[in-house]
């Protein structure tokens, strides 16, 4: 009995230590790539890797010069944020309707939407490529934005639905008694009460679009390429330029990782609505 009670105010050192150990273990590969980005090529391939070295920033300059980092970064911002905005615009009314006015078909509709996401992209690559080619949309950020909107839509609808569903119906009825119509419901109940949920859905959609490589590599090249496209040019076996590869990787991932860190609260808060009853 006394042993069990002690579990309540357990302030031992073992659990924090283990947590820190696991956290550093998980973060280690990212740390490696950041450190390597500041090394010279010579230092980057030393075995065992040295931790004592004079950091250099020349790799970052080389990446911008050789790969036109800024252009790819702008394309990434356009496609990731554009597709997220579009997906939210389409999905919010739909998820609202399904959560607040459920019908018999609602559950099947949701499951069907998710099942479209299970389609392997390679299965429809050729038709989409041909369609883009015929309409002159190949290698445009517009086409990529539309594709990202469509491939994220099922998840966006699903997440929004689960946030909206948990909004207490009493609030809704109160607003209706006050004479609010559908638009009023959306404005005064749905949006304010699920802001955290919408934010975290948006964040997930931005992350998925930013990191998407398959469609970006296959549908874009010089003009509309994203950072994922840029990285793919570094993966060729033309030589193990690890320091440059690391710098390019850091530059490609840093914006979204930092966004993730800053929005962590929002993300966590949002997920509280959805994943929790």
């Amino acid at each position, binding site marked *: *009995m006394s042993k*069990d009670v002690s579990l*309540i105010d357990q302030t031992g050192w073992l*659990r*924090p230590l283990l*947590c*820190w150990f*696991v956290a*550093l273990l*998980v*973060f*280690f*590969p*990212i740390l*490696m*790539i950041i450190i390597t980005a500041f090394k010279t090529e010579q230092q980057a391939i030393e*075995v065992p*890797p040295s931790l004592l070295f004079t950091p250099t920033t020349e790799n970052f300059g080389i990446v911008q010069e050789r790969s036109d980092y800024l252009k790819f970064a702008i394309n990434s911002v356009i496609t990731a944020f554009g597709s997220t905005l579009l997906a939210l615009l*389409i*999905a919010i*009314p*739909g*998820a609202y*309707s399904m959560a607040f*006015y459920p*019908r018999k078909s609602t*559950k099947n*509709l*949701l*499951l069907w939407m998710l*099942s*479209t996401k*299970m*389609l*392997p*992209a*390679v*299965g*429809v*690559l*050729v038709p*989409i490529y041909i369609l883009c080619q015929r309409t002159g949309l190949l290698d445009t950020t517009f086409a990529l934005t539309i594709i990202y909107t469509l491939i994220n839509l099922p*998840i966006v609808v699903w997440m929004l639905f*689960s946030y909206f569903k948990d909004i207490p119906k009493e609030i809704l009825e109160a607003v209706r008694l006050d004479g609010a*119509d559908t638009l009023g419901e959306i404005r005064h109940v749905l949006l304010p009460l699920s802001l955290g949920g919408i934010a975290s859905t948006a964040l997930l959609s931005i992350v998925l679009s930013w*990191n998407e*490589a*398959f469609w970006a590599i296959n549908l874009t090249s010089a003009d509309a390429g994203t950072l994922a496209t840029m*990285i793919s040019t570094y993966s060729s076996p033309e030589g*193990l330029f*690890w320091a440059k590869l690391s710098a390019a*990787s850091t530059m490609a*991932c840093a914006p*979204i990782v930092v966004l993730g*860190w800053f929005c*962590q609260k929002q993300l*966590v808060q949002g*997920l509280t609505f959805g*994943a*929790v009853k």
Partner: protein
Amino acid sequence: MQKWLPRLLVMPSFISLLLWMIVPLSMTIYFSTIRYNLLYPGENNFVGGMNFEFFYTDDAFWPALFNTLTLVGLVLLLTVVSAIFIAVALDKPFRGRSIARVLLISPFFIMPTVNALIWKNMMMHPVYGVLAAIWTGFGLEPVDWLAQYPLGSIIIMLSWQWMPFALLIFITSLQSMDHEQKEAALLDGASGWQVFRYLTLPHLARPIAVVMMIETIFMLSVFAEIFVTTGGGPGYESTNLAFLIFAQALMQFDVGVASAGGLIAVILANIVAFFLIRAIGKNLVA
């Protein structure tokens, strides 16, 4: 409230997804029934089910199917189980917890292609890799991970990337747990394990279902990691269905066979979805 309005509001999502499904899919169905090899233009005659037979009897088909399912199953198991334990450990405050949490969820924001490159070049490389350095430090022979355990290596990379996603959702869910109930149970003489088994796990049921659903969707069509690291090899040891279709379409230029493969993958995805929804669907839409 007008009756038609809710229906109208669903329409944009419904129609855009329907088009996204129907247009390419009907083209894929059409391609799968004709001879369509980019190396032999102009010979697009109808061949019936031959493309399907060709794909289905390919030496790579069964390994690819097996690898696809193994990959989904093992990544789910590894990420969900480890994330549950880490989330429970993180649930009580300690010095620097928020920093530890930031470090733990970071891999989820890393680009999959970069993930693959980090692990291939910096972690698993038999000469320069960190793991090799550790192995040698213990006086052991370094392992050529991607050559010796290709599928296992890819499963490790994917688990590293997706454990944070599961963790993030579980941490959040645990925060909303009723701590008084937990303390009451402990005072009544329940062991830590019993609290975990009968209070924490049931509380996590729906988050676990959500995580499994979303991860399955992504793991069924894993592509970038295989493309960057092993190229499906050696042999077919790390080829999954998505990669096999890619190999048919873009390496052998056989659009017809690749389309047939795409349809087989769609059918497989639907079978998996059916069982998955039967198993965890209650928790999802309840």
